[in-house]
């Protein structure tokens, strides 16, 4: 019951077309920037990859996938997953570093 009340409340004020079109424009600009920095050399390309790509993914998750408009549970589910991947990543590279 509570969930239903919450649902209708949250859906009472939906974002309009404009919000998503702005996000899309931002995604196009970031893609252009990513391609741009990839031509500047290896260091810039790697930094571009490590910063701009997660930023783009974040925009899709937050706006297009409506995480902005969800409660804490779904946000936590996604963060725990990303955290787990990060731990595996760190474990692998800490192992590689000592070989």
């Amino acid at each position, binding site marked *: 019951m509570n*969930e239903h009340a*919450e*649902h209708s409340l949250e*859906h009472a004020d*939906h*974002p*309009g*077309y404009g919000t*998503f*079109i702005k*996000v*899309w424009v931002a*995604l*196009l600009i970031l*893609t252009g920037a*990513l*391609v741009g920095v*990839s031509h500047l050399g290896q260091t810039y*390309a790697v930094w*571009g*990859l490590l910063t701009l*790509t997660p930023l*783009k*993914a974040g925009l*899709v*998750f937050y*706006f*297009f*996938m*409506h995480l902005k408009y*969800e409660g804490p*549970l*779904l946000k936590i*589910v*996604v963060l725990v*997953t*990303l955290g*787990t*991947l990060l731990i*595996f*990543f760190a474990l*692998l*590279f800490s192992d*590689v570093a000592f070989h």
Partner: protein
Amino acid sequence: MSEHVHRDDFGARLGMWLFLVTEIVLFGGLFIGYSYMRYKYPVEFHHGGAELNATLGVINTLVLLTSSLTVVLAIVAIQRAEKKQAMVFLGTTLALGLTFLVIKSFEWAAKFHHGLYPNAPHLGTLPPGEQVFFGLYFTMTGLHGLHVIVGLSLLSVMLWWVATDRIRADRYIHLENSGLYWHLVDVIWIFLLPLFYLAA
């Protein structure tokens, strides 16, 4: 028997997200594998990336980003009971998804033509690092391509359901969940672009 139909849209979205995080972990494992191999074979990955057509990769990125936008706009349209608009947006998404697959197939065909395909004799003559690069390239873009096909199938059903009023302003959770799947396919491609096409 009463006419009460139990509905739990939040539960449905939670279920979809739980499935999506397993997809994130599936691709995440491949991304971690990629990182290690790129660390081990930096020069070979650079050469491998130079073989790929970055322009086609970027065009496909723009195609998928736009298709993600049209899915989310279809949901806005359904919320406002603008059925025709929603159908136009969904139709556009399907067209863009097919465009992605056509571009991808041209790209793969060109690679095959140059003797670059899994287990190809020519591939065997390349340095081990480049073989790993193309192995990951075909595995990851191939698995992604399968997801595009699944996503397009789901969205085709959604278009049909919007047309037949099974999806309406008061009931569109299936469209939302199919949209979530399509956005995840887009996010995976967002990572594939710099890892493969811009690696040179």
